[in-house]
């Protein structure tokens, strides 16, 4: 069976959940080969996880050259492997960093690129929801090796233990790929909450919160549910919450099991980033808010009463 390359999504070796999703998807397309590119000594942390999710092989590159420069070095690694292993496809997570790597890989290998796929058939037909999910497109790469960028939360990760063969990739990263050097990484929020795009539950706040400090209500509910915190553009424009947390047309696209919109009207800008969520709950005091047109459960009321009560109730039922 031909190989399917999966770029391992990780933070200093700690694998992200989407990696398990990609390996699960790859198993339906061919023989999954994980590609791990990280700093020295980081692979050990990812190794057991990659075996748990059925990687048949792991290509490993551990060096500062792939960890400390933006985009280009990892694309060089992938392009080299595409050339040598002739895989059926390359699967890459739809994160801000990795989609850039995917694009560069497609350019280097003169391949077609599909982004934001939510499903890929064994015939390599990818499904995408475009225009904020209002149109469903099936498309197929017609050139080179399909490079397919897959949305987190598209496939349920299923374990399939394996004993992957390890292949150290012999590569020297070119000087031109080392143009943009990461000289420092600064953490501004150490929340311990799940990543927004990976979270199973997202609680987002909008204009109805009225002030930055009221986001504490949203955070408390989120923490009770083990959820990530999102924000509408109105809220980030007002400076109430960081831009990184913005959900919508010019922010992140999320597709969790449960999305709770607090004080968000649900205009197209926001809707485009969350309408593929499995279940949508909305709390808004305006009965005419567009969000009620597509929420599964809508509560017309004052969020300052409803949200604390909901938080207490969830806490109580957790026992």
């Amino acid at each position, binding site marked *: 069976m031909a190989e399917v390359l999966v770029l391992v999504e990780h933070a200093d070796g700690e694998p992200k959940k989407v990696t398990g999703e990609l390996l699960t998807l790859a198993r339906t397309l061919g023989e999954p080969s994980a590609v791990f590119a990280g700093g020295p000594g980081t692979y050990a942390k990812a190794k057991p996880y990659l075996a748990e999710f059925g990687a048949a092989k792991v290509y490993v590159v551990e060096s500062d050259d792939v960890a400390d420069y933006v985009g280009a070095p990892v694309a060089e690694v992938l392009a080299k492997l595409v050339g040598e292993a002739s895989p059926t496809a390359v699967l890459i997570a739809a994160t801000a960093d990795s989609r850039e790597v995917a*694009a560069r890989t497609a350019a280097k290998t003169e391949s077609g690129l599909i982004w934001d796929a939510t499903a890929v058939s064994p015939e390599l037909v990818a499904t995408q929801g475009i225009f904020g999910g209002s149109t469903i497109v099936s498309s197929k790469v017609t050139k080179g090796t399909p490079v397919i960028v897959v949305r987190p939360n598209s496939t349920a990760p299923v374990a399939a233990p394996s004993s992957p063969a390890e292949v150290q990739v012999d590569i020297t990263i070119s000087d031109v790929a080392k143009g943009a050097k990461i000289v420092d990484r600064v953490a501004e929020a150490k929340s311990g909450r799940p990543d927004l795009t990976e979270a199973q539950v997202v609680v987002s706040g909008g204009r109805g919160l009225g002030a930055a400090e009221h986001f504490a209500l949203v955070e408390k509910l989120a923490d009770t549910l083990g959820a990530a915190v999102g924000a509408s553009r109105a809220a*980030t424009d007002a400076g109430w919450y960081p831009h990184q947390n913005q959900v919508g047309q010019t922010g992140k696209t999320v597709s969790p099991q449960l999305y709770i919109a607090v004080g968000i009207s649900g205009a197209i800008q926001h809707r485009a980033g969350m309408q593929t969520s499995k279940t949508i709950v909305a709390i808004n005091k305006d009965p005419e808010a567009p969000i009620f047109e597509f929420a599964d459960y809508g509560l017309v009321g004052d969020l300052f009463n409803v949200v604390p009560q909901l938080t207490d109730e969830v806490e109580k*039922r957790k026992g």
Partner: protein
Amino acid sequence: MNIVVTVKQVPDTWAEKKLDAADKTVDRVSVDNVMNEMDEYGVEEALKIKEAHGGEVTVVTMGPAKALETIRKALSMGADKAVHLTDDALHGSDALQTSAALAKVIATLSPDLVITATEASDARGGVMGALLAERLGLPQLTQARKVTVDPAAGKVSIERLADNGYALVEASLPAVVGVVEKINQPRYPSFKGIMAAKKKPLTTLSSGDAGLDAGSVGLAGAGSTVVDAQSAPPRQSGTIVKDEGDGGVKIADFLAAQKLI
């Protein structure tokens, strides 16, 4: 500083976007078209860097004849000149082809800095900055929420957005910088700016003028093809309840019934 900024004309954010029934490309005919909103941040950043360090801002776009409106907007904001790559043969080009075509044009301008926005609201690829860096062989400083240029030292650094903060990234000029929304406050064109824009130099290039191989551009040479496109079934509205003082409990009941808690 010789600065190039790329812009794209897209269907209005608030318009309902569709694919053309015949060739499954984005329908740009039946809707109002505007400058991609994110690109305004790119133009503004280019103008700010020019104001701080001197130089010239050249707007580059690829798109149909009416994309000229978007060029005019960038010029009326204050850009100095523009290049419009336009040709029916380019219709249907994908991001990879577009990046190759733009890179070819941009290379002839020998910029110190190429500025792009993070994504266009129609395709939402978020890849053009990376692709231009790849094609031009320049450092990729994308996802920038802050840009600092030091022309004397020939350096540029950015704060690159990360999930929990940012990365400080440095490169030598020339470089490609991709800016995120909220990096600045894009200016509105003044009346004077609008009048001046009409007299600013504009170069219009066909794909042949730009030295592009006819087989490499357009729908036929794209790297992927749309097999099928359907409107998504609209989401139905569910249960809407008015809060009677027990709204939080009712939501919890709903979540429990759905096995979500």
